[in-house]
């Protein structure tokens, strides 16, 4: 059984947020839900300004606080290292969200079908897409996972349940990279089996000085970072719509 992990090179990342968009298209996440999120931050004062970018997928912790607190076992840890959400079981208590120090969880506050960016009920679009919402809906998300036969890929998103980055389990189980790693224009994201010393991710991990986010919190994340984390005084800039205009 492989043990998947991700290595993100902050020295390469330029904060373009292509990974965020690729994630949205692959996983059809509704507006304001970011399974992958890229911080753009500034530290220190002009002219000593330091600019940092920090992509933040789910950390898929080995000691995941969210898994421990889930009252119904909807959030669970897979043997291949993925932390998964059974969206058919989730009751929407948001305890996982509250427990996660990384803020990776998204709750479907609104009806996802009405929260998919455009009005997909347009007759001309429906005739072209067969009524898919969004028009580019990915049918793979409906499939049960191969490992445990539970619905963890997100499907068409469900009002009142929590969701988060799945490491694109529907792709990983096919032997493909998650959408963010696949798309990154500067190859800053490496995904792979960290138990296999020959995998690209393992080699990257070995070759670089890495850190983990909040590693003193003992969450044991499976996402490793190359470079330096944003400092204490880092201020986030260029925030997405949900922060600028007060929600969806």
């Amino acid at each position, binding site marked *: 059984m492989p043990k998947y992990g991700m290595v993100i090179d902050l020295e390469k990342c*330029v904060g373009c947020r292509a990974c965020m968009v690729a994630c*949205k298209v692959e996983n059809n996440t509704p507006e304001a839900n970011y399974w992958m999120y890229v911080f753009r931050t500034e530290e220190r004062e*002009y002219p000593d300004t330091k600019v940092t970018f920090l992509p933040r997928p789910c950390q898929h912790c080995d000691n995941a606080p969210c898994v421990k607190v889930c009252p119904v076992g909807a959030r669970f840890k897979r043997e291949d290292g993925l932390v998964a959400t059974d969206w058919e079981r989730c009751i929407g208590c948001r305890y996982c969200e509250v427990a996660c120090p990384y803020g990776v969880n998204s709750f479907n506050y609104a009806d996802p079908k009405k929260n998919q960016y*455009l009005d997909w009920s347009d007759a001309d679009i429906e005739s072209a897409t067969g009524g898919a919402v969004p028009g580019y809906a990915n049918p793979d998300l409906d499939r049960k996972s191969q490992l445990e036969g539970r619905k963890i890929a997100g499907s068409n998103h469900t009002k009142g349940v929590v969701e988060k980055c799945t490491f694109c389990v529907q792709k990983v*189980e096919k032997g493909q990279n998650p959408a963010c790693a696949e798309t990154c224009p500067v*190859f800053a994201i490496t995904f792979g089996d960290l138990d296999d010393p020959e995998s690209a991710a393992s080699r990257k991990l070995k070759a670089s000085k890495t850190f983990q986010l909040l590693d003193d919190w003992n969450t044991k994340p499976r996402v490793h970072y190359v470079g330096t984390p944003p400092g204490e005084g880092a201020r986030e800039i260029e925030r997405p719509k949900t922060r*600028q205009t007060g929600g969806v």
Partner: protein
Amino acid sequence: MQLTRRTFLKGSAAAGASVAASRFLFTNVGTLQPVETSESSLGQAAIEEWVPTTCWIGKQDCGMLARKINGRVVSLHGNPIHPKNKGTLCPKGVGQIAALYDPNRVKTPLLRTNGKGVPGEFTPISWDEALDRVSKEIKQTREKDPKLVVWQKGRSKAGDFYDDAFVKAIGCYKMGHGAYCSDAGYRAAEITAGMHGVIHPDFRYTKYVLSWGWNIANGGGNKTCWLTWNQQLLEAMDRGIKVIAIDPRLRASGTYADKWLPIRPSTDLALALALCHELMESGVIDREFLTAHTNSTYLVKADGHFLRKDDVEQVWDEASGAAMPAGSEGITPALEGSFTVDGQTVRTSYQVMRDKYQQYTPAWAAGITGLKAEDIATVAREFGENAMIGSTIVEDGIEIPYRPVSIMTYHIAQAENGFQQLRAELMLLMLVGALGAAGGSAIDWTWKLHKNWDGLDNIELTDSPDYTLNKSKYYPINSKNPSVAAQVMNDPEKFGVSPDKIPEIMIIHHANPLGSFLSHPDIEASYHKLRFIAVIDPWISRTADLFADVILPAATMEKYEGVISATDGFVDAQTLRIPPVEPMFESRGEIDIYMDLTEKTGDLYGEDGYLSVVNKELKLDEDHALPLAQKPTVREIFDRWARQQKLEGGIEFFEDPDRAVQLKGPVSPTKRYGWATDPPFLGKTLRVYAEKLLVYQEQMKEMGSPQAYYQDYLPLPEWREPTYRGSPAKYDLDLISFHMIEFKQSRTSMIPLLAELAPRQRVDINTATAKAHGIKDGDDVFIESHNAVTNETRSMTVPAHLTEALRPDTIAVPHHYGEIARHPWTKGQGASPNSIFFTGEGYTSMTADQSYHVMVRVQKA
């Protein structure tokens, strides 16, 4: 349309999955179990197809693979075999899927039913009616003068053979994307080196890069997008390249930059001059290059003109101690020195330059640029040291001079002194011999001479220019600025343009002049003078909304288009855009639209008809040429072209996801490097000293051109304070605009996946400046710009975005947005800063290019 028959055949689920698996298995991901068939929600086996296509948004047309399930596109992926993007995509590339399936696109041809200048009311009409209407207007005006029909395009997507064919078949006037971003830089490179482009590094070998007015991590360039540059830059960074960011604003380049020089806007020329000064004074110059390949040795008289005998420029032969014709065999031309020839004192152009630049010390530049003198001196020293003058490397068995210092610059050309600014940067490169050297800076992918090498050297000024003022006493060198043209249209007499040369109708193709160009009031006024405007666009742009009589719905990525260069600069490759689905709604691809339109105007068939021009433009030989009496499908056109390229299966080659890109092999160093061409630099003597500019200046003066127009026509770049700085002191801040990585121009603001990331216009303002003005993050800020020449003011109100990565005396507003809120996602986005910039004297460069600089004041709204 015969859509991707081949991919459809192989589209069994298992086959599709295995293609996918092999395609994305870059890392050793490992599979849990054998891949199972993907199932649709209905439980039926899904048919997965991969259609190779090309990005429709960005500037460099990255290769994409569209993943289709049961005929519906579900995602777009980078094509791994495409040299430009190597399997990756930027946010725009991935996000454009929302544009494909956007219900807010123009679905049918539309006809305006209300007056112009206000948001349009449109009624749907059939294609037949729409084409009838447009062709009737074209025919009517063409009878008078075909040049009164103006065709204007935004950025070209794919090769422009098909719109050139339209322009030629109709005989209309072609107005480009032109002066929008960097044409002043193109003109500077053309007149200096005969190359068409701006400046970009040879990332494969360079060691020291001045990222000048260019966001090295997020900025485009003249030849490729940031995406390709970054991939090359990253490889260079692994070798320890040093990057100096010279920019008032530090953004994503912060990750890559070793040092940030926060230069004051529009003072780059002063910095470049100081760097030239330091190199010349320290003697770190490539004498061999300057002597052999530039006109630095040409003798210049006191009046600034070359010393000529029998029309031949003279150099000082050190061996014989006499003036000799340049290029003579067996002479040793002096690079420096003042000499007396026939009783008059002459100096080499290099000496003229050195003398003139004596004043441009780092301390002097520090006062102008706001940088530290020691930083300027350090950069000059490092630039000289890293140039490794005299070194060579061998590539493909060819010894090439190795000068691993380079400049990356582009939009810096958008200034009043943009042309001379770029000239000065080229000088800097030439001083150390880095232009056209390995590791230095290139201008185009290959070193090939542009027609403007001679063209710009032989301009005959005219008294009766057309409405773009081309070759006029105002802008002898001319990039055809639509804003200037609009000012001429509004007052032709002022510029001595005959009223019967003012256009009557316009066809606007994927352009949004009311978003992208400056001086919106001028453009709007000029559009009121046009009898008819047709817009070809997938959305109702601001321009279409306010002025289109007819809107023809264009397809986005879902059409055949080409020929698209796939080169990354090192590998020669080409490809096509293949439609993953039929055009949405009633939209059509542009080639279809032009064929339909020329058929209506009677210009499709026969000799000199559209099809005939297509044959010429695509260089289709007899075996593959289109019959001139029969309308082909677009697929057939490309099939013929592909067969002529000897590609197996014709167009099917490009429809096959495993082939899709025609890789022609590496670009030879003999084509790539100016030094390595035979003869080097194609035997041309590069113009360090552009004497012709002085000639034009004299002619302009003679023809009565005001000083504002001729003052920068100087053979050597010289510093003068930009005109816009003359605004009263209360306009205390520089306004600059910038490009955001999420967007390309204005139309991407309608792609919700991108607009969500950057939902509305903002003004970047330094935290300290904001505090001094009582402005907090998110507060609305009133910005008023001032025209130092006309005293006119313009204003806009945008929310503040506080940053520490910007000079305190400068504010910056991204140049996107500004659409009329017809699309649900453009509501509340705010205005484009282009609405408060100016055009005209002081705000237009000597080459009729736009200056995106103005002084403003701000206050909390």
